């Protein structure tokens, strides 16, 4: 994607709306990516559970088979919680207050990186949007 288009959009945003609208857009972008990741993970979870249920001899082995997918769920919920924290800060900002953005933003970034890693560990391809979203702000492993 051309790097000029985002710059143009950014200039447009700052000119038309301001920093808070830009921040809301970024947080909402994260929410869209999370929602898409959840849709992908839900389908994979259902399929994995069907296989594990058929192949496992007891509950313990079923749980072991589902461990990577349960980790995926934990990572998804962690990312959701980090976005909610950012949304709360935005709401405070809208009301005229201020909050600790740097820590909340770092936690959200860490949560999304964790989500990406756990997708890989579970052997599930992360959705393109997660790759693009993360790849735009951090260095992802080669070959993705």
């Amino acid at each position, binding site marked *: *994607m051309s*790097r000029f*288009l*985002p*710059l143009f*959009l*950014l200039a447009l*945003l700052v000119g038309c*709306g301001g920093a808070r*609208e*830009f921040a*809301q*857009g*970024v*947080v*909402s*972008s*994260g*929410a*869209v*990516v*999370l*929602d898409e990741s*959840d*849709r992908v*993970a*839900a389908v994979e*979870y*259902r399929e994995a*559970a069907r296989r*594990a*249920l058929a192949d*496992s001899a*007891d*509950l313990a082995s*079923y749980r072991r088979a*589902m461990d990577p*997918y*349960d980790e*995926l*769920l934990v990572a*998804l*919920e962690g990312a*959701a919680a980090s*976005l*909610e924290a*950012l*949304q709360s800060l*935005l*709401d405070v900002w809208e009301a005229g207050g201020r909050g600790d953005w740097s820590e909340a933003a770092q936690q959200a970034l860490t949560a999304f990186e964790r989500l990406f890693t756990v997708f890989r560990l579970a052997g599930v391809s992360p959705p393109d*949007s997660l790759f*693009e*979203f993360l*790849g*735009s*702000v951090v260095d992802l492993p080669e070959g993705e």
Partner: protein
Amino acid sequence: MDPLTIAGLVIGLAQALILAFARLGPEIWDKKVGDIVPDTLRTRLEKIAADAAALEKFGPEPPANPFGEDDPG
């Protein structure tokens, strides 16, 4: 953070915005996290259903031994 890193980050975030804009359209400015992400994730609902099916097939989990695994009870 040096200015180049900050510039890269802003460009990256703008790219993320384009992604969301493509999905939600102009509503992206009005939507909050709670409007986009459901309270209970779909994957959580799948786990609830899958756990119920597993318990039905294998029976309930044995209660944990409060004295440790080595204690015969």
